[in-house]
């Protein structure tokens, strides 16, 4: 109490007329917000511990609970907003760097919401996906710039390694450790069922999941955790993580508390030791070093796997991507500044990087200007929230999208943004067995498959409306997009016209 006391951000509102004191809320809250008062015969709550994850709300059988924003606030001030002041109190108390989770919540422009999609009227017909074939299949990888023939004139069909997706969406990197075994199991099973890929993140690949290798991207990041020959061989593609949209320029830190049991074994580090990924790869201080790592990984896997280089969207992303394209990478993944994380310094998450929409448009155009767009595939991530975001990203020039936050939401995440606590009540961002158990992979897999199936249907509807029956004909098709409420500079970077033009 006293100077350090900050009135809780949320209040637990319990409707006493409905509460039957079944104590489900109490049993389900790992933050110990709820308790049963035997003397009074009613449920009590300690809202100082509440993170607003909505687990109790979702499970209350009589809908007796709701969590509301506290109205106990400081005097309103447009400059010194409540959150800003609270952060100062916290730092004055702790002297520490503030940590946050999931994506940037600040009110920066969401360009997806300022872009509109075209549809056919009169001059060409829209296509009904229920009646006509509608193709969402994509192949990622380097395409040869010349068709070559043998002496008989037959086309030589050897191609650089490609990955094949039933739809242009993949689950992006989330490590085993930052998320639970059951979350990984759900992603792996769903990717396999859907004919797409999921990504191990920098935590290695649990031995139980090698069987999903054909649908797995194995990641190599700056800490090299869990990387060994069998791991590289296990996946369909290898991703070098240079950066992450939520925290460009810094590495990762998985606290020792989460390095337990199989997590420690899979990462190949001792139990209880912090897993600290350095900010840079210490063998990559420049682009020529990246080329060496790309080719080392290709050598190690006999040129059978495409290599993805993942970078955070930063100011000079177009030039960086061009360098990556020339460094032997088969695929470039760009992660925008709204991308999620299990933990990042708040200041970095909220202030570093640029929006994926602008980064993607700039990179796609630069690679075309340089005539090398066909030598790499582009994957866009960093807050792709819906099928229409996917369609817009493809039309701006992406070959496919990475989604992670949307996938976690499908698994039950309620975006309380406290992953760093390790007490995820939904069994996702936790390693505590009794919490991990809350995510049944059977349900998880089913919900992910449902989500992607729904998106695929919506993508097909949108494509059909535009008179396009193959996703390839949408890629980079920027005339299918128009901006609303954007200034000329923004339109120029996005390479689209304003609505009405």
């Amino acid at each position, binding site marked *: 109490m006293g100077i350090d006391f900050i009135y809780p951000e949320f209040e637990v509102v319990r409707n006493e007329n409905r509460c039957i004191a079944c104590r489900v809320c109490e049993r389900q809250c790992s933050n110990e917000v709820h308790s049963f008062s035997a003397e009074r015969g009613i449920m009590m709550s300690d809202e100082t511990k509440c993170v607003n994850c909505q687990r109790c709300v979702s499970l209350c059988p009589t809908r007796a609970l709701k969590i509301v924003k506290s109205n106990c606030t400081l005097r309103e001030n447009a400059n010194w907003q409540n959150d800003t002041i609270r952060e100062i109190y916290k730092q004055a108390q702790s002297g520490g760097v503030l940590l946050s989770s999931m994506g940037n919540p600040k009110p920066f422009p969401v360009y997806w919401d300022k872009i509109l999609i075209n549809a056919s009227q009169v001059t060409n017909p829209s296509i009904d996906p229920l009646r006509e074939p509608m193709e969402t299949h994509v192949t990622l990888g380097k395409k040869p710039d010349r068709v070559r023939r043998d002496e008989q004139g037959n086309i030589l069909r050897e191609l650089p390694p490609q990955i094949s997706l039933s739809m242009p969406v993949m689950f992006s990197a989330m490590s085993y450790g930052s998320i639970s075994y059951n979350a990984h199991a759900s992603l792996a099973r769903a990717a396999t069922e859907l004919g797409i890929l999921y990504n191990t993140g920098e935590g290695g690949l649990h031995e139980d999941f090698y069987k999903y290798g054909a649908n797995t991207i194995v990641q190599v990041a700056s800490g090299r955790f869990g990387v060994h020959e069998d791991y590289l061989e296990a996946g369909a593609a290898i991703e070098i993580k240079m950066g992450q949209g939520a925290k460009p320029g810094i590495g990762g830190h998985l606290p020792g508390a989460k390095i337990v049991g199989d997590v420690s074994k899979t990462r190949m580090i001792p139990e209880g030791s912090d897993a600290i990924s350095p900010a840079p790869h210490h063998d990559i201080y420049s682009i020529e070093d990246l080329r060496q790592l790309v080719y080392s990984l290709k050598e190690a896997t006999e040129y059978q796997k495409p290599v993805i280089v993942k970078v955070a969207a930063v100011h000079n992303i177009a030039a960086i991507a061009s360098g990556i394209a020339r460094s032997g990478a088969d695929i470039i993944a760009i992660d925008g500044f709204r991308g999620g994380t299990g933990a990042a310094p708040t200041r970095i998450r909220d202030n570093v990087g640029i929006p994926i929409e602008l980064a993607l448009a700039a990179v796609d155009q630069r690679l075309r200007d340089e005539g090398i767009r066909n030598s790499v595939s582009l994957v866009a991530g960093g807050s792709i929230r819906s099928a229409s975001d996917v369609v817009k990203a493809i039309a701006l020039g992406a070959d496919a999208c990475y989604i992670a936050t949307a996938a976690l939401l499908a698994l039950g995440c309620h975006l309380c943004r406290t992953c760093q606590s390790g007490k995820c009540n939904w069994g996702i961002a936790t390693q505590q067995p009794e919490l991990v158990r809350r995510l049944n992979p059977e349900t998880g897999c089913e919900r992910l498959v449902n989500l992607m199936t729904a998106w695929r249907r919506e993508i097909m509807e949108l494509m059909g409306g535009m008179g396009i029956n193959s996703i*390839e004909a949408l890629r980079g098709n920027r005339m299918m997009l128009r901006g609303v409420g954007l200034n000329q500079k923004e339109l120029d970077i996005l390479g689209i016209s304003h609505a009405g033009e």
Partner: protein
Amino acid sequence: MGKMRKEGQFRIPSGCAIAAVISRNGERMPGDLIAKSMEPMHERSNGLGGGFAGYGIYPEYRDFYALHLFFDSRDVRKECETLLKEYFEIVQSEIIPTRKIPEITDEPIIWRYFVAPLNSMLRSLQLDEKELVARTVMKINTEMKGAYVFSSGKNMGTFKAVGFPEDVGRFYQLENYAGYSWTAHGRYPTNTPGWWGGAHPFTLLDFSVVHNGEISSYDANRRFIEMFGYKCTLLTDTEVITYIMDYLIRIQGLSMTEAANVVAAPFWSTIEREWDREERQKQAYLRTVFPSLLVTGPFSIVLGFTGGIMALNDRLKLRSMVVGEKDERVYIASEEAAIRAMEPDVEKIWAPAGGEPVIIRVKEGVC
């Protein structure tokens, strides 16, 4: 025209009529034959563009590139000639003869040159002659205001104008040309400031394309093909299809059928069902390597080239196109009526399936 922008500054969707005729034994047919085909399809045009391409029409200059140009003024023609002389020997320079008719007005200066690339230039630029011609055409069309090359092949020529196609035929006195193949186009743009260069056929070197449709993949195709030195100045489907064909056939060395399989690629489900392993793998290869050259949305096109024509529909067959035959001649048109206008006793009429190329070549050694 007030504030209305010129063609090329914005995209114009349009519907159209197309027709073509080819003589397999290389018999040269007068141009008014193809012009006749457009009369029954009058309703498919709206007077905002018509044109023709004839092959084998300049036998006396068969070894020279025939450049047809529109100029806004004498000055720009002089400027253009100076540029051409840097790279080419001009063996003939003349106005293209036209007939004054009330239906066609506001014509620009319409000129043609027969040129041969200078060997010294080819050596110093390290280009083959077709590439030099192509680059020069791109250069004039993108950089020289008031000059526009609308035909650039050998022993072939394009004739186009703002007007109904049958009037355009009379305007250019097509009866005075004879070719072994002809293509024709009548345009129905939804809006246009009426620029002569915007009429079809669209050509590059000896490739000419007449097209009916509005492709939905346009910008995906355009942004891809522009990586390889092509500049889409008109923002029309026909232009981009011409460049795609040039890229696939001339640059990548694909056959006509292979190029058709890229542009109107079979569905993946069809490829998977293909029983012949070689064919299946080849189709999968072409789709994987050239995904950005798949053309979707309705189209029927006739691609003219030296020694032949290829007709192709989009893979869903969203535009009409019929083929007819009589003796050694093959006719193609948006409507059967157009074929019957050229040959009332046509035999064997059929509608090719979506994505199925119809390739007709003149017998070897004839042209």
